[in-house]
Every structure is written in structure tokens, then in C-alpha cells.
């Protein structure tokens, strides 16, 4: 049984149907990437999984249907969503954002240890612990969003373009961190990313989403060898 099972999921904004029945799975401890052009519905798919958008179809996490559940209860089950546009709590400080990341946890020591670890991993955040999150630069906020998500020790991480606005060096570090986290803590990830080269390196499998439908899927290796995909997403 997969950790996340999405079967024939559709979603719409008012009259506009955006997802036309997509199916995908993420196994425990697995990293899966979703590629797709602008407006393909990637964000919508992640939002549907985390309960922010009403959807039809089947949606199971850890064998239990989570379709129609509140986002907060889905989060409590161990799904952490780093939304596109970061979702930083702009009026709160960096530190408060980080502590809220651990909102569903109760282990004080564990939280303190994680806090230290992520500040270590993202030094710009450590430097700005007491800065209001909303005043930080775009890239800094993006780091915060990812680090905050990790604070919850999720079982599944939904990442919506985590490298958006990050400097090349930081992007690289971020993907290294994600790889480490995945390896050492066994956190599964569903990753939407435009930096397809890095994403396919990290991921074991991938899907290609076009106009609300999955048009290709396979192992990361197979996908990166596909000519069309290379042309559209990799440029090599």
C-alpha cells in the first residue's frame, strides 16, 4: 500500500474544471516529482491533496481516505504542504513561524533540537530570527517556508516549487537538504518543481501534468531520457 494514493481526482474553481481525474501514488519514504507547464494544475493538485481545494475522486493517506477532510486534520496526520507563494505568516517573526511549524508536536526537546538544526542548515534564517517574516526578501521567505515545514516532522512533504526565488547556491543546498531529510528521516515527498534537472535527480519517479491530466509518468531516469520532456523541461 502506498503512503499517498490519488485516484481519478478532479477539481474545479467554480465553473472551470482544472483537474480532470489524475491518479498518482507516493510510497513511504519515496520522492516523487510532478512536472508541468504553467497553469497545468500542479498547484491545484497539491492543494486538493492537502484539503485546501474541494475535489472529487479518491484520496487516501496511509490507507485512510482524507478526501473532504479539513486541511488542519490532514496536517495533523503528517502531511505538510509548502504552498506556492510560501504562506509565510507575514506579521509574525521568523522564530514564531518556525515554532508554529511544530504546532502539531508536543515534544519540547525534539522541537528545540529541530529548531537548532534548521537554523544551522539555513543560516540566513538564524540571523533573522526576530525579524518580521513579511519584511524578508523573497528567497529568505522561501527558505523559511521549507524550514518551517520540516519543523513538523511530516511523513509526507508536499513541496510547491520550493526553489522559486532561491539563489542557485541555495537551491543546490536545499535539494541536498531534502535528499538528506529523505534519506535519514524517511520523509516522503511530492515535489512540484520547475528546476527539473535537480528535481529528477532527487526523485525516484515522476509525473508530467498537462492541462489537468497526467500525460506521462515513469521513473526519473526514464523521464529524463524522454526527448519531449528534455526539450520542454530540461533544455538539454
Amino acid at each position, binding site marked *: 500500500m502506498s503512503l499517498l494514493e490519488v485516484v481519478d481526482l478532479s477539481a474545479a474553481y467554480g465553473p472551470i474544471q482544472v483537474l480532470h481525474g489524475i491518479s498518482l501514488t507516493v510510497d513511504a519514504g519515496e520522492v516523487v516529482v510532478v512536472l508541468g507547464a504553467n497553469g497545468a494544475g500542479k498547484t491545484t493538485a497539491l492543494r486538493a491533496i492537502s484539503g485546501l481545494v474541494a475535489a472529487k475522486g479518491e484520496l487516501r493517506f496511509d490507507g485512510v481516505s482524507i478526501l473532504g477532510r479539513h486541511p488542519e486534520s490532514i496536517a495533523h496526520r503528517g502531511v505538510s504542504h509548502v504552498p506556492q507563494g510560501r504562506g509565510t505568516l507575514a506579521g509574525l517573526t521568523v522564530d514564531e513561524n518556525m515554532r508554529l511549524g511544530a504546532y502539531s508536536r508536543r515534544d519540547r526537546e525534539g522541537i528545540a533540537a529541530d529548531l537548532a538544526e534548521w537554523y544551522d542548515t539555513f543560516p540566513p534564517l538564524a540571523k533573522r530570527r526576530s525579524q518580521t517574516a513579511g519584511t524578508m526578501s523573497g*528567497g529568505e521567505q522561501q527558505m523559511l517556508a521549507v524550514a518551517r515545514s520540516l519543523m513538523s516532522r511530516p511523513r509526507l512533504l508536499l513541496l510547491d516549487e520550493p526553489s522559486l526565488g532561491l539563489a542557485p*547556491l541555495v537551491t543546490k543546498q536545499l535539494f541536498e537538504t531534502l535528499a538528506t531529510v529523505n534519506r535519514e528521516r524517511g520523509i516522503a515527498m511530492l515535489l512540484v518543481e520547475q528546476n527539473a534537472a535537480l528535481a529528477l535527480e532527487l526523485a525516484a519517479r515522476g509525473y508530467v501534468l498537462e492541462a489537468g491530466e497526467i500525460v506521462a509518468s515513469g521513473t526519473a531516469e526514464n523521464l529524463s531520457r524522454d526527448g519531449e520532456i528534455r526539450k520542454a523541461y530540461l533544455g538539454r
Partner: protein
Amino acid sequence: MALLEVDGVGLEFGGIRALDDLEFTVEAGEICALIGPNGAGKTTLFNCVSRVYTPQRGSIRFDGRELLTLPPHRVARAGVGRTFQNLALFPALTVLQNVMVGAYSRGRGGAWSDALRLPGVARRERRLAREGSELLERLSLDHLGDQPASDLPYGTLKRIEIARALASQPRLLLLDEPAAGLTHSEVEELGGTIRQIRDDFELTVLLVEHHMPLVMSISDRVVVLDLGRKLAEGTADAVSQDPQVIAAYLGAEL
């Protein structure tokens, strides 16, 4: 004389030095890229140029004219247009209206002439709509003119911002991470578009971007910022070989 001269600009927020005696110039007609680590101060510089922020020190001259003494709304009239890192469109307006309002600085006439719908008004509206549609077409957005400028895909919104900035017929265009969130092929297309509009409108472009392939392919010159200061400057190739830039920004291999 350079078109844009940034001279000793310094700005602090509380204890954080966002810009620290920054100095560089942009020549007329070039595409100059401004790169640097997150938090280096790139967006802050844009904000200073467009007078959203007021730096504590230094001067910013555009075409020889000091911008820092102008009120924000005069900057557009002086010939500077910009886009925003975090989208800043007007969601209540349609895509076309967003572009039409972009031409605000070129027009005149206030509430009274509008309210009475004086003869010139209708003519002006038709002209603005026509010009706006042309711009949309150029950025392949023409099919979206009547849509509200909200809830469209991210990359599309970024392009609408470019169209809106162009509507004021600027001489200097400041683009803040226009390629963010675009797929590879979309980035390539964007690169072409930027060059095209630079040539067609005889623009100067100052581009902030983390997408190095784009920077490498279209910029005439690159200025690297770190901690609010200029770290390096030169052609894209030269800069990308610079060990300091690699250490601070690019990482070991590219």
C-alpha cells in the same frame, strides 16, 4: 553618461544593512543583469529606484536627473517602469485594463473630464485600449484581455506585469525575477521576448534573476551584489568564473 547611476546608496532596516554604499551604472540600451544571493538587496535597490523605499544615503540618477528627490509617482513619468518579485497586479481589473492603467503616467485628465465624458475622453479610451491590445499580443496574452487579472497561472501573471510596465513606454525597465516559476521552454521564450522588446522599444533593461541560463543568454553585462554591496561586475562569462561569485552565489559547479 550612463542612463542609470547608482551612487553610494545605503539603506538599513533596524540593524540589517540591506544596501551598503552600493555603486554601479547601467548604460543606455543594454540588458544588465543584477544577481546575488538571497537577501543581497536586489529588490531593495529596485524599491529605491522606484521610490517605494527611500535610501538613507547616496544618489540615484536617471538620465542625469536625481530620482531620490522625486515623489514615487513621478518616477514612472521620468521613464522608469518595473515589475515585482511578488506579483503586484490589480486583480479587480481585467488583463487589458491592467495594461491600460499602466499607461497612466503618459495620460492626463482627471476625474472631472471623465465624469462628464468630455469628447477627448472616449477617443483616449479607444486609443489606450488599442495600444494595450497590441502589447498583449506581443506578449502572447491577447486571448486573456477580458479575463480578470487574478487566478491566472503564475508565469502568465508575470508576463502581464511586463506588459503593464511597457504600457508607460519606459526607457528603463526593471524586471524582478521574471523567469521564476517558468518551465525551461517558457524561460527560453521569455528570453527572446525580453530581447525583442528591448530592441523594438529601444529600452534599457535591468534584470534581477536567479535563473542563470537566462542571465547568461541575454545579458550584456552582469552586476553581482552581496550583502548590499557590489561584489563583481562584468560580462556573464567573466562573472560566472569569478571565484568570489561562485563562493557566494553560484556554488561549486554550474
